[in-house]
Protein backbone atom coordinates (compact mmCIF):
# COMPACT_ATOMS: atom_id res chain seq x y z
CA UNK A 1 0.00 0.00 0.00
CA UNK A 2 2.81 2.44 0.84
CA UNK A 3 4.27 2.46 -2.65
CA UNK A 4 0.92 1.52 -4.22
CA UNK A 5 -2.28 3.57 -3.80
CA UNK A 6 -0.84 5.67 -0.95
CA UNK A 7 1.74 6.97 -3.43
CA UNK A 8 -0.75 7.92 -6.11
CA UNK A 9 -1.71 11.55 -6.49
CA UNK A 10 -5.54 11.14 -6.59
CA UNK A 11 -5.50 9.08 -3.37
CA UNK A 12 -3.07 11.43 -1.61
CA UNK A 13 -5.06 14.51 -2.63
CA UNK A 14 -8.41 13.03 -1.65
CA UNK A 15 -7.22 11.80 1.74
CA UNK A 16 -5.64 15.17 2.51
CA UNK A 17 -8.56 17.25 1.28
CA UNK A 18 -11.55 15.36 2.63
CA UNK A 19 -10.49 12.90 5.36
CA UNK A 20 -8.59 12.55 8.60
CA UNK A 21 -6.18 9.74 7.70
CA UNK A 22 -4.64 7.47 10.31
CA UNK A 23 -2.95 4.07 10.25
CA UNK A 24 -2.59 1.58 13.08
CA UNK A 25 -0.48 -1.53 13.40
CA UNK A 26 -2.08 -4.64 14.87
CA UNK A 27 1.10 -5.13 16.92
CA UNK A 28 0.35 -1.83 18.65
CA UNK A 29 -3.35 -2.62 19.01
CA UNK A 30 -2.65 -5.95 20.74
CA UNK A 31 -3.23 -6.10 24.51
CA UNK A 32 0.49 -5.61 25.21
CA UNK A 33 0.92 -3.18 22.29
CA UNK A 34 1.95 0.46 22.52
CA UNK A 35 -1.20 2.06 21.08
CA UNK A 36 -3.15 4.39 23.35
CA UNK A 37 -5.69 2.59 25.53
CA UNK A 38 -8.33 4.85 24.00
CA UNK A 39 -7.24 3.72 20.50
CA UNK A 40 -7.49 0.05 21.46
CA UNK A 41 -10.93 0.58 22.94
CA UNK A 42 -12.20 2.65 19.99
CA UNK A 43 -10.83 0.15 17.49
CA UNK A 44 -12.48 -2.84 19.20
CA UNK A 45 -15.77 -0.98 19.42
CA UNK A 46 -15.54 0.04 15.77
CA UNK A 47 -14.76 -3.54 14.64
CA UNK A 48 -17.78 -4.90 16.54
CA UNK A 49 -20.03 -2.25 15.06
CA UNK A 50 -18.68 -2.80 11.52
CA UNK A 51 -19.26 -6.56 11.78
CA UNK A 52 -22.75 -5.90 13.12
CA UNK A 53 -23.49 -3.74 10.10
CA UNK A 54 -22.28 -6.43 7.72
CA UNK A 55 -19.17 -4.53 6.69
CA UNK A 56 -16.04 -6.52 5.97
CA UNK A 57 -13.49 -6.60 8.79
CA UNK A 58 -10.01 -8.00 9.20
CA UNK A 59 -6.55 -7.22 10.49
CA UNK A 60 -5.35 -5.59 7.26
CA UNK A 61 -8.21 -3.39 6.23
CA UNK A 62 -9.28 0.11 5.20
CA UNK A 63 -12.21 1.72 7.03
CA UNK A 64 -14.14 4.97 6.74
CA UNK A 65 -15.62 6.28 9.99
CA UNK A 66 -18.26 9.00 10.18
CA UNK A 67 -17.46 12.09 12.31
CA UNK A 68 -19.53 10.53 15.08
CA UNK A 69 -17.11 7.58 15.07
CA UNK A 70 -19.39 4.99 13.48
CA UNK A 71 -18.02 2.82 10.65
CA UNK A 72 -19.47 3.72 7.24
CA UNK A 73 -17.55 1.55 4.81
CA UNK A 74 -14.63 -0.87 4.60
CA UNK A 75 -12.38 -2.71 2.19
CA UNK A 76 -10.12 -5.73 2.53
CA UNK A 77 -6.53 -4.82 1.66
CA UNK A 78 -6.69 -6.88 -1.54
CA UNK A 79 -9.40 -4.47 -2.74
CA UNK A 80 -7.99 -1.35 -1.11
CA UNK A 81 -4.72 -1.99 -2.96
CA UNK A 82 -6.60 -1.20 -6.19
CA UNK A 83 -6.51 2.59 -6.37
CA UNK A 84 -9.75 2.74 -8.36
CA UNK A 85 -11.63 0.69 -5.76
CA UNK A 86 -10.16 2.66 -2.90
CA UNK A 87 -11.05 5.98 -4.57
CA UNK A 88 -14.60 4.73 -5.12
CA UNK A 89 -14.96 4.07 -1.38
CA UNK A 90 -13.59 7.53 -0.57
CA UNK A 91 -15.96 9.12 -3.08
CA UNK A 92 -18.97 7.30 -1.57
CA UNK A 93 -18.13 8.75 1.84
CA UNK A 94 -17.58 12.25 0.43
CA UNK A 95 -20.96 12.13 -1.33
CA UNK A 96 -22.83 10.66 1.63
CA UNK A 97 -21.40 13.14 4.15
CA UNK A 98 -21.28 16.06 1.69
CA UNK A 99 -17.64 16.70 2.65
CA UNK A 100 -16.17 20.00 1.47
CA UNK A 101 -12.57 19.74 0.32
CA UNK A 102 -9.96 21.73 2.23
CA UNK A 103 -6.40 21.71 3.42
CA UNK A 104 -4.92 18.72 5.30
CA UNK A 105 -5.87 18.88 8.98
CA UNK A 106 -2.53 17.37 9.96
CA UNK A 107 0.65 18.65 8.32
CA UNK A 108 2.32 15.86 6.30
CA UNK A 109 5.70 14.83 7.64
CA UNK A 110 8.21 11.99 7.12
CA UNK A 111 6.87 8.77 8.59
CA UNK A 112 10.11 6.77 8.55
CA UNK A 113 12.50 8.57 10.89
CA UNK A 114 15.59 7.76 12.90
CA UNK A 115 14.57 6.66 16.38
CA UNK A 116 15.34 8.80 19.36
CA UNK A 117 18.50 7.56 21.03
CA UNK A 118 21.25 8.41 23.46
CA UNK A 119 23.64 11.15 22.28
CA UNK A 120 26.70 9.62 20.64
CA UNK A 121 24.79 6.59 19.37
CA UNK A 122 25.39 5.24 15.87
CA UNK A 123 22.21 5.05 13.80
CA UNK A 124 22.23 3.02 10.61
CA UNK A 125 19.56 3.23 7.94
CA UNK A 126 19.01 0.08 5.90
CA UNK A 127 17.14 0.01 2.59
CA UNK A 128 16.05 -3.21 0.92
CA UNK A 129 14.63 -3.37 -2.60
CA UNK A 130 13.90 -6.05 -5.19
CA UNK A 131 16.24 -6.16 -8.18
CA UNK A 132 15.30 -9.07 -10.40
CA UNK A 133 13.51 -12.39 -10.60
CA UNK A 134 10.71 -11.86 -8.10
CA UNK A 135 10.66 -13.77 -4.82
CA UNK A 136 9.54 -10.69 -2.88
CA UNK A 137 7.01 -7.88 -3.00
CA UNK A 138 7.61 -4.74 -4.99
CA UNK A 139 8.44 -1.54 -3.19
CA UNK A 140 11.19 -0.62 -0.84
CA UNK A 141 11.56 -1.31 2.86
CA UNK A 142 13.63 0.39 5.52
CA UNK A 143 15.02 -0.34 8.96
CA UNK A 144 16.76 1.78 11.56
CA UNK A 145 19.45 0.07 13.60
CA UNK A 146 20.90 1.74 16.69
CA UNK A 147 24.22 1.10 18.43
CA UNK A 148 24.59 2.86 21.76
CA UNK A 149 27.83 4.74 22.50
CA UNK A 150 29.19 1.90 24.62
CA UNK A 151 28.73 -0.58 21.77
CA UNK A 152 30.57 1.34 19.05
CA UNK A 153 33.99 0.01 20.07
CA UNK A 154 32.73 -3.52 19.31
CA UNK A 155 32.30 -2.54 15.66
CA UNK A 156 35.86 -1.27 15.26
CA UNK A 157 39.36 -2.70 15.26
CA UNK A 158 40.63 -3.57 18.70
CA UNK A 159 43.94 -1.98 19.73
CA UNK A 160 46.00 0.43 17.66
CA UNK A 161 44.96 0.17 14.01
CA UNK A 162 47.64 -0.52 11.40
CA UNK A 163 47.29 -0.96 7.65
CA UNK A 164 46.40 -4.56 6.86
CA UNK A 165 45.06 -5.34 10.33
CA UNK A 166 41.92 -7.45 10.21
CA UNK A 167 39.26 -8.04 12.82
CA UNK A 168 35.94 -9.73 13.27
CA UNK A 169 33.07 -7.47 14.25
CA UNK A 170 31.35 -8.50 17.46
CA UNK A 171 28.90 -11.20 16.39
CA UNK A 172 26.00 -9.95 18.49
CA UNK A 173 26.39 -6.44 17.07
CA UNK A 174 26.71 -7.78 13.52
CA UNK A 175 23.57 -9.89 14.00
CA UNK A 176 21.57 -6.80 14.95
CA UNK A 177 22.26 -5.44 11.47
CA UNK A 178 22.34 -8.61 9.38
CA UNK A 179 18.98 -9.89 10.63
CA UNK A 180 17.35 -7.06 8.64
CA UNK A 181 19.02 -8.14 5.38
CA UNK A 182 15.98 -9.62 3.67
CA UNK A 183 13.69 -8.37 0.91
CA UNK A 184 10.14 -7.01 1.16
CA UNK A 185 8.05 -9.87 2.56
CA UNK A 186 4.94 -10.32 4.70
CA UNK A 187 6.88 -11.64 7.67
CA UNK A 188 8.72 -8.90 9.50
CA UNK A 189 9.24 -10.56 12.86
CA UNK A 190 13.03 -10.73 12.84
CA UNK A 191 13.01 -12.91 15.96
CA UNK A 192 11.83 -15.68 13.63
CA UNK A 193 14.86 -15.29 11.35
CA UNK A 194 17.40 -18.06 11.76
CA UNK A 195 20.96 -17.16 10.88
CA UNK A 196 22.74 -20.23 9.56
CA UNK A 197 26.03 -18.54 8.66
CA UNK A 198 27.24 -15.01 9.21
CA UNK A 199 30.44 -13.03 9.22
CA UNK A 200 31.30 -9.35 9.20
CA UNK A 201 34.98 -8.47 9.15
CA UNK A 202 37.06 -5.34 8.84
CA UNK A 203 40.47 -4.70 7.29
CA UNK A 204 42.35 -1.45 7.80
CA UNK A 205 43.15 0.27 4.49
CA UNK A 206 44.71 3.51 5.70
CA UNK A 207 45.65 5.34 8.88
CA UNK A 208 46.20 9.10 8.90
CA UNK A 209 46.77 10.46 12.37
CA UNK A 210 43.81 9.25 14.38
CA UNK A 211 41.66 8.78 11.28
CA UNK A 212 41.21 5.24 9.97
CA UNK A 213 39.60 3.88 6.81
CA UNK A 214 38.71 0.19 6.86
CA UNK A 215 37.04 -2.15 4.44
CA UNK A 216 34.07 -4.19 5.63
CA UNK A 217 33.10 -7.56 4.15
CA UNK A 218 30.08 -9.56 5.21
CA UNK A 219 28.40 -12.82 4.43
CA UNK A 220 24.99 -14.08 5.44
CA UNK A 221 22.91 -17.19 5.07
CA UNK A 222 19.61 -16.83 6.91
CA UNK A 223 16.31 -18.64 7.00
CA UNK A 224 13.47 -16.17 6.56
CA UNK A 225 9.89 -17.20 5.85
CA UNK A 226 7.94 -15.06 3.41
CA UNK A 227 4.78 -15.46 5.48
CA UNK A 228 4.59 -16.50 9.12
CA UNK A 229 4.85 -20.18 8.28
CA UNK A 230 7.79 -22.39 7.42
CA UNK A 231 8.53 -22.25 3.68
CA UNK A 232 12.24 -23.07 3.52
CA UNK A 233 13.16 -19.73 1.98
CA UNK A 234 16.71 -18.60 2.66
CA UNK A 235 18.54 -15.31 2.24
CA UNK A 236 22.05 -15.66 0.86
CA UNK A 237 24.05 -12.47 0.65
CA UNK A 238 27.52 -11.01 0.41
CA UNK A 239 28.09 -7.42 1.53
CA UNK A 240 30.92 -4.95 1.13
CA UNK A 241 31.53 -1.43 2.36
CA UNK A 242 33.69 0.72 4.53
CA UNK A 243 33.92 2.47 7.86
CA UNK A 244 35.83 5.66 8.58
CA UNK A 245 36.50 6.32 12.22
CA UNK A 246 38.56 8.29 14.66
CA UNK A 247 40.51 6.44 17.30
CA UNK A 248 40.73 7.62 20.87
CA UNK A 249 39.34 6.93 24.28
CA UNK A 250 35.86 7.06 22.78
CA UNK A 251 36.24 6.04 19.11
CA UNK A 252 33.90 7.93 16.78
CA UNK A 253 32.51 6.64 13.50
CA UNK A 254 32.56 9.36 10.83
CA UNK A 255 30.99 7.27 8.09
CA UNK A 256 29.76 3.71 7.65
CA UNK A 257 28.31 2.34 4.44
CA UNK A 258 27.56 -1.18 3.26
CA UNK A 259 25.87 -2.67 0.22
CA UNK A 260 25.13 -6.15 -0.99
CA UNK A 261 27.33 -7.40 -3.79
CA UNK A 262 24.75 -10.05 -4.40
CA UNK A 263 21.70 -11.10 -2.41
CA UNK A 264 19.19 -13.79 -3.31
CA UNK A 265 15.87 -14.94 -1.85
CA UNK A 266 13.01 -17.03 -3.17
CA UNK A 267 14.51 -17.26 -6.65
CA UNK A 268 14.98 -13.51 -7.00
CA UNK A 269 17.68 -10.98 -6.30
CA UNK A 270 17.43 -8.00 -4.00
CA UNK A 271 19.71 -5.17 -2.97
CA UNK A 272 20.43 -3.83 0.49
CA UNK A 273 22.18 -0.55 1.25
CA UNK A 274 23.20 0.60 4.72
CA UNK A 275 24.32 4.08 5.62
CA UNK A 276 24.90 6.10 8.73
CA UNK A 277 22.06 8.46 9.59
CA UNK A 278 21.76 11.45 11.85
CA UNK A 279 20.43 10.38 15.22
CA UNK A 280 17.45 12.06 16.82
CA UNK A 281 18.47 13.07 20.34
CA UNK A 282 16.45 11.88 23.28
Amino acid at each position, binding site marked *: *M*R*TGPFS*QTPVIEK*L*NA*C*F*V*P*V*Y*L*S*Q*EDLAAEGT*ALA*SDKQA*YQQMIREAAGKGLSTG*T*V*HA*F*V*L*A*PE*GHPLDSLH*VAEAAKAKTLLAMLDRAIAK*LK*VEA*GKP*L*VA*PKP*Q*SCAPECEPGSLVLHL*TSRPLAGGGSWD*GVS*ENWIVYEPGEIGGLLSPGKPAVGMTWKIDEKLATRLLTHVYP*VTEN*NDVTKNQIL*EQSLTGRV*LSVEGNRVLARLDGRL*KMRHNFYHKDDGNTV*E*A*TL*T*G*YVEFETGERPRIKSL*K*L*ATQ*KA*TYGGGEF*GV*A*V*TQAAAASR
Partner: protein
Amino acid sequence: MQIQYHSLFRGLAVAVCLLAGGAISLPAAEKEPTDADLKVWTDGKVAQWRPTAAERRFDEIGWSESLTAARQLSSESGRPVFLFTLDGRIAIGRC
Protein backbone atom coordinates in the same frame (compact mmCIF):
# COMPACT_ATOMS: atom_id res chain seq x y z
CA MET B 1 36.69 -54.22 -9.80
CA GLN B 2 35.73 -51.91 -12.60
CA ILE B 3 32.27 -51.49 -11.09
CA GLN B 4 33.75 -50.86 -7.66
CA TYR B 5 36.14 -48.22 -9.03
CA HIS B 6 33.23 -46.69 -10.92
CA SER B 7 31.11 -46.57 -7.74
CA LEU B 8 34.00 -45.16 -5.76
CA PHE B 9 34.62 -42.50 -8.39
CA ARG B 10 30.94 -41.58 -8.48
CA GLY B 11 30.84 -41.39 -4.70
CA LEU B 12 33.87 -39.15 -4.61
CA ALA B 13 32.47 -37.02 -7.40
CA VAL B 14 29.19 -36.61 -5.53
CA ALA B 15 31.05 -35.77 -2.31
CA VAL B 16 33.22 -33.21 -4.11
CA CYS B 17 30.12 -31.66 -5.69
CA LEU B 18 28.33 -31.50 -2.34
CA LEU B 19 31.34 -29.97 -0.64
CA ALA B 20 31.82 -27.54 -3.47
CA GLY B 21 28.13 -26.79 -3.39
CA GLY B 22 28.35 -26.07 0.32
CA ALA B 23 31.42 -23.92 -0.15
CA ILE B 24 29.92 -21.87 -2.93
CA SER B 25 26.35 -21.89 -1.69
CA LEU B 26 26.51 -18.14 -1.10
CA PRO B 27 25.96 -16.06 -4.22
CA ALA B 28 29.12 -15.13 -6.04
CA ALA B 29 29.82 -11.44 -6.48
CA GLU B 30 29.37 -10.19 -10.02
CA LYS B 31 32.37 -7.90 -9.65
CA GLU B 32 34.01 -7.58 -6.29
CA PRO B 33 35.06 -3.98 -5.66
CA THR B 34 38.79 -3.58 -5.17
CA ASP B 35 40.19 -1.59 -2.26
CA ALA B 36 40.90 1.25 -4.69
CA ASP B 37 37.31 1.57 -5.91
CA LEU B 38 35.65 0.52 -2.65
CA LYS B 39 34.34 3.94 -1.65
CA VAL B 40 33.10 4.83 -5.12
CA TRP B 41 31.38 1.44 -5.47
CA THR B 42 29.75 1.56 -2.03
CA ASP B 43 28.69 5.21 -2.28
CA GLY B 44 27.19 4.44 -5.70
CA LYS B 45 25.16 1.48 -4.45
CA VAL B 46 23.90 3.36 -1.39
CA ALA B 47 22.86 6.33 -3.55
CA GLN B 48 21.22 4.06 -6.12
CA TRP B 49 19.20 2.01 -3.62
CA ARG B 50 18.15 4.54 -0.99
CA PRO B 51 14.41 5.34 -1.09
CA THR B 52 13.49 7.89 -3.73
CA ALA B 53 11.07 10.76 -3.22
CA ALA B 54 8.59 8.86 -5.39
CA GLU B 55 8.85 5.89 -3.04
CA ARG B 56 8.13 8.10 -0.06
CA ARG B 57 5.02 9.83 -1.35
CA PHE B 58 3.28 8.13 1.58
CA ASP B 59 4.81 10.97 3.60
CA GLU B 60 2.74 13.49 1.60
CA ILE B 61 -0.38 12.33 3.41
CA GLY B 62 -1.20 14.19 6.63
CA TRP B 63 -1.47 11.15 8.92
CA SER B 64 -2.81 11.60 12.44
CA GLU B 65 -0.70 10.35 15.34
CA SER B 66 -3.47 8.17 16.77
CA LEU B 67 -7.03 7.05 16.22
CA THR B 68 -8.05 9.12 19.24
CA ALA B 69 -6.54 12.28 17.70
CA ALA B 70 -8.10 11.45 14.31
CA ARG B 71 -11.56 10.99 15.84
CA GLN B 72 -11.23 14.29 17.69
CA LEU B 73 -10.28 16.11 14.46
CA SER B 74 -13.05 14.31 12.61
CA SER B 75 -15.61 15.36 15.19
CA GLU B 76 -14.45 18.98 15.05
CA SER B 77 -14.16 19.25 11.26
CA GLY B 78 -16.99 17.03 10.04
CA ARG B 79 -14.55 15.12 7.85
CA PRO B 80 -14.64 11.31 8.02
CA VAL B 81 -11.75 9.29 9.40
CA PHE B 82 -9.88 7.09 6.97
CA LEU B 83 -8.36 4.26 9.01
CA PHE B 84 -5.90 1.74 7.60
CA THR B 85 -4.97 -1.18 9.84
CA LEU B 86 -2.15 -3.56 9.09
CA ASP B 87 0.28 -6.17 10.34
CA GLY B 88 3.81 -4.82 10.56
CA ARG B 89 5.09 -1.29 9.98
CA ILE B 90 3.83 0.55 6.91
CA ALA B 91 5.97 3.63 7.62
CA ILE B 92 9.10 1.61 6.82
CA GLY B 93 7.55 -0.66 4.20
CA ARG B 94 7.86 -3.71 6.45
CA CYS B 95 4.25 -4.91 6.34
